[in-house]
């Protein structure tokens, strides 16, 4: 059965995983370098750099093909995106509540697009890996 359409998400070749892993240590080295070159660097800015790079890293991992991309893996992927989004909503809700209790306001400068993208991609990746782990566990 062929159901190709504009809704189909093309996945990256498996080799891209190695490239994605580069995005995890890279921002830490960059932030350390920035701290040495400019000691007045805003810590929030450093955090945003890390969130941004990690969001890209997890984003690539989430959109990279598994060695065998069969229907079970595709169903795990779908579930991971749904679960990841669900966790993001509750996670951000919890952060807003904590922020409200501590600072009497719901919003904060820390709620940036980088943080949200990082959390979303992290949750999707975690939900996918949990399913893969559960499927590999002995019966």
């Amino acid at each position, binding site marked *: 059965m062929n159901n190709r359409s504009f809704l189909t998400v093309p996945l990256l070749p498996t080799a891209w995983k190695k490239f994605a892993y580069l995005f995890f240590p890279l921002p830490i080295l960059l932030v350390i370098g920035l701290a040495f070159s400019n000691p007045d660097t805003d810590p929030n800015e450093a955090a945003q750099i890390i969130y941004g790079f990690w969001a890209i890293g997890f984003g690539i991992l989430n959109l990279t093909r598994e060695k065998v991309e069969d*229907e079970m893996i595709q169903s795990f992927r779908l579930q991971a995106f749904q679960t990841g989004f669900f966790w993001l909503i509750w996670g951000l809700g919890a952060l807003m509540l904590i922020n409200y209790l501590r600072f009497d306001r719901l919003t904060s400068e820390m709620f940036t697009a980088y943080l949200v993208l990082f959390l979303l991609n992290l949750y999707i990746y975690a939900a996918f890996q949990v399913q893969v782990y*559960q499927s590999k566990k002995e019966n």
Partner: protein
Amino acid sequence: MKNTIKIERARHNLTQQDLADKVAVSRQTINSIEAGKYVPSTVLALKIAKVFELPVEAVFQLEDLDFE
């Protein structure tokens, strides 16, 4: 949903990997279906039944739990 894949595999002298290769999925997927951890699509269920030369309902059966 329960299934008789393990029994049919033994009858046809097929390993999980052999069956996986015949229906173009991973060995892990066959293992998960056998263990009842993953319910295959209609297409995959039909492919598996075809390998064993049986009707799909002879390989896959509904359980009471499926009606809840």
